[in-house]
């Protein structure tokens, strides 16, 4: 009995360590121990990786007192996400450590870095609805501190757009969750997922998590944020934190449980639009981080499409989940390695060797689906999914996938070109950025090949037709890019999202100024008082009149008569 309790406590401790370590370190960096924290920064992500590797699946710990019923646990999906996030955060913290050696605003960056990490790990482990919301909010708000880190006007504007959208997302999420809890009467995630029936909840969840992944109408923050955030933070954002949105959908939407055709169609439409939109806007950006942001919008659009396909049909839903996860893993690793490559370029300036450029080219084209890369595997899995769905989805995908692949190829080539032109940032070369990139490069290259769960899709993609199907869009994209660069590009055609004000920004932040402060109260009171004071002379005069003896005598007599009359009336 006691040992069971002890074991439960041990589990709880074990799991809380994942999110607890970054949090404790965040607390420590507000104290004079800051230097030590910087030194041991990568340690923050280690417990997550350890737990992800060692903990048995199905491990659940209840912490009843914690925030209206805390419940943590690790399931299969959670393990994959934790592993992935842990890895990316680990790399990001190594990268941050080298960056921080030359930075003055250490505390701020460290604090927000570690708290976002805590939020990210926590939400993966959360098995309770409120826990998920708590860590999601923690992560979202802490990321604001990362985006705004540079402190420039642009960075602040980016942060503000982000904050507005996050706030909208939070509120939507809150509303959705409260409705879910009300309709199911349970706070556990497992009970919730099947319960989304109302379109309202569906829409709210789409907004709530869609903000995080930059789904189409809510994408406004992504490009400026990636552009302005320090590169390690941007890597964490793009590689790890974005996935929280996907995980949220996976946890809360009934993927594979029930079909929800209307919702699915909506997802597909939004996702497809985002996929195209990201590519097109990305080509007009002049900054590598922004291009990567656009690519994220586009890639997340594809993931949204997969999700939508899963929602359309119950049967497809079962197949969609592994595809989705596969795609997420692929995208995260690739995107983070691109960011680390960008970091490498930024720390070296123009003097990238050809080897390095081609090394960066590999993940870039993997994103586009170059054969034998994770991208090709993921795309073939995507196609496989449409096959199970049948027409019209299969036909559409044969049309749609190559287009996005070509687009992504162009975008990535654009990125590489920009990278070559990148000015050197910082005053000295940062140690280790090469190593970090190498590690992430290797991870990108081999993960899907070595990952047993992906084996089916890997073998599936290894056929000549598949090879050809994957290759021609990439090649076409390269040609198109060359043509585009030759004929279309002009200096002025750039987009700077930071300078644009989103509609939300206008509505919410300028709201107060639109309504001019009117001191109507004081004026009203003033009017009332002056109105009253008009009576004062009259009051004085009437009081004086009442004091005259004649009036007194008259009223005296009148009083007598009145009373007499009243008394005698009966």
């Amino acid at each position: 009995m006691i040992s069971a309790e002890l074991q439960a406590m041990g589990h709880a401790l074990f799991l809380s360590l994942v999110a607890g370590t970054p949090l404790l370190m965040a607390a420590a960096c507000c104290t004079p121990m800051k230097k030590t924290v910087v030194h041991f920064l990568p340690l923050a992500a280690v417990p997550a990786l350890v737990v992800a590797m060692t903990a048995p699946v199905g491990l659940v710990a209840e912490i009843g007192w914690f925030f209206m019923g805390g419940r943590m646990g690790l399931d299969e999906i959670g393990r994959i996400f934790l592993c992935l996030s842990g890895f990316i955060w680990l790399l990001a913290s190594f990268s941050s450590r080298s960056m921080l050696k030359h930075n003055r605003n250490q505390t701020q960056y460290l604090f927000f870095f570690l708290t976002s990490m805590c939020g990210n790990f926590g939400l993966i482990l959360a098995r309770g609805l409120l826990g998920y919301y708590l860590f999601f909010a923690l992560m979202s708000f802490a990321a604001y501190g990362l985006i705004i880190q540079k402190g420039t006007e642009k960075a602040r504007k980016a942060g503000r757009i982000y904050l507005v959208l996050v706030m909208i997302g939070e509120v939507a999420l809150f509303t959705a969750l409260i409705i879910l809890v009300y309709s199911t009467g349970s706070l556990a995630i497992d009970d919730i997922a099947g319960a989304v029936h109302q379109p309202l909840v569906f829409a709210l969840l789409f907004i709530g998590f869609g903000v995080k992944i930059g789904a189409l109408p809510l994408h406004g923050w992504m490009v400026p944020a990636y552009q302005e955030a320090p590169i390690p933070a941007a890597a964490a954002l793009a590689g790890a934190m974005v996935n929280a949105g996907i995980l949220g959908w996976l946890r809360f939407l009934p993927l594979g449980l029930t079909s929800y055709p209307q919702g699915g169609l909506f997802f597909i439409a939004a996702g497809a639009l985002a996929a195209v939109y990201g590519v097109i806007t990305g080509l007009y950006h002049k900054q590598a981080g922004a291009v990567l942001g656009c690519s994220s919008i586009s890639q997340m659009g594809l993931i949204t499409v997969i999700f939508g396909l899963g929602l359309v049909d119950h049967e497809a839903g079962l197949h969609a989940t592994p595809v989705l996860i596969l795609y997420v893993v692929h995208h995260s690793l690739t995107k983070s390695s691109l960011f680390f490559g960008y970091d490498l370029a930024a720390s070296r300036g123009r003097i990238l060797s050809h080897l390095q450029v081609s090394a960066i080219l590999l993940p870039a084209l993997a994103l586009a689906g170059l054969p034998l890369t994770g991208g090709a595997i993921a795309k073939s899995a995507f196609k496989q999914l449409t096959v199970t769905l049948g027409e019209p989805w299969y036909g559409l995908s044969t049309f749609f996938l190559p287009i996005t692949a070509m687009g992504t190829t162009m975008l990535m080539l654009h990125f590489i070109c920009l990278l070559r032109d990148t000015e050197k940032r910082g005053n000295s070369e940062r140690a280790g950025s090469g190593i970090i990139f190498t590690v992430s490069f290797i991870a990108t290259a081999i993960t899907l090949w070595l990952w047993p769960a992906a084996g089916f899709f890997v073998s599936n993609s290894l056929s000549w037709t598949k090879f050809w199907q994957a290759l021609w869009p990439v090649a076409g994209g390269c040609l198109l890019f060359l043509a585009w660069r030759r004929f279309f590009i002009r200096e002025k055609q750039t987009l700077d999202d930071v300078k644009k004000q989103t509609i939300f920004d206008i509505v919410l932040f300028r709201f107060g100024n639109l309504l001019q402060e009117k001191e109507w109260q004081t004026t009203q009171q003033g009017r009332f008082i002056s109105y009253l004071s008009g009576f004062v002379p009259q009051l004085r005069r009437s009081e004086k009149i009442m004091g005259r003896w004649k009036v007194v005598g008259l009223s005296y007599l009148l009083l007598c008569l009145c009373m007499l009359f009243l008394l005698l009336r009966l």
Partner: protein
Amino acid sequence: MNWGQWLLVSILLSSFIPGIIIFGLPEEKHRLRTVLNICGSIAKIALVLIMDIGVYFGHIFEIRLSIIPGVELLLNGDPLSALFATLSSVLWLLTTVYAVGYLEGSPNRSHFFGYFSLCVTVTIGIALAGNLVTFLLFYEMLTLTTYPLVIHRGTEKSQRAGGNYLIYAFSGGAAFLFAVVSLQTIVGPVDFSAAGFPSSFIESHGAALILIFILLIIGVGVKAALVPLHGWLPQAMVAPAPVSALLHAVAVVKAGAFGIIRIVLDVYGPQNLLLLGVLPLLGGVASITILYGSIRALQQDDLKRRLAFSTISQVSYIALGMSLADQPLAVIGGLVHLVHQGLMKITLFFCAGNLAETLGIHRISEMNGVARRMPFTMAAFSVGALGMIGIPPTVGFVSKWYLGLGGLAAGNWWVVAVLAVSSLLNACYFLPILTRAWFGKQQEPWPEEQYIGRFETRLMLLVPPLITAFIVIAAGVVANAQVSPLAWVRFIVRGYTL
């Protein structure tokens, strides 16, 4: 008298006697005065805790004093009063510490602390009041004891604000008195009880009872600053920061909100109100207040004024919860917000006071980068502000969560909509402050900077907001534990058959 009755009396006396002594103390003896104050407040907390434990185990605390037939003073320790009494006494201790630090070196402190103590005595009296007459008694006395605090600065502006406060408060008190007497003539003397009065009266006096309910709500709504009865609150901001903290978090506004709770739950009873059909009215007023307060807060540049409008908005959450009185979850949300709002708002006011006292900052536009100068203060402020928005794991989220659930349970979708919009608006007026303070760049020197103390400001000014900020988070994190505001509120709600 048994020990329970002595306990009630000594709870009241533990601040009353220090208050009276302080009035008599010469101005110079500030050390003795501080010791008296602190001892009194610690003693009060201890006594209130004893009462809490007693209440939890079902001991009945009750003192009756018959004045004239039909008028009876009744002090009563039930779970609800224990909630409010505990909140007030704990926050009183912190506010006292803060006030000692804040007013260091300023004139007329005897006067100030004397009324300060009386004010808390009266607030505890409101908490312990067991029937409407007793409530009325302390409610009116609250106006009187807070008035000298509001006009403490003695400027023309503060006098005008004080006058306005009085006009509002007394008008409300008059409406309340009228309603209380009317109610008594219809249903007889009403003690606060879970059932309310017998529902047989509703058939015979329905219209009158509705009218009385409206009058009662107007009476307490003035202090709770329901729109359109809120005009005094932003003006009362001229008072010193501890007073604002007291007004907003401990005493006045809270007393009004507590009055709404008492009227809805204990005087009328949810069932009667459902029969009368007046709850939607309260809900409507509360919702309008919530939104109106937030929108007005957006327009303010003066920090304390913004906080004041935020209070108007936030306190109406309690009224909103009460307007769904037949839903236990909403009632939990409303009740627990009584505590939570107090904690958050007092933190914010402490911090605003610190900024004003240390750096002379009164306007939000002057706050650029202030967090680098006063990181601890702004950290506490941020916690309070995030709580107001309802970010987990702060207590603000807990209240909103329960309110929303209750609204849904009642089938009122608009409640959730109001909560959502209000959260957004809260974010709109709090987040810019935070971003300014933390990430803004200081452009000009602080208006009146003083270097006081070893830390960023005096220790006595720094510790109270840090403590309350800690509680704001801690009480949210441990909301589900055995001992937490939420747990106690659940215990209260268990006593009602909703």
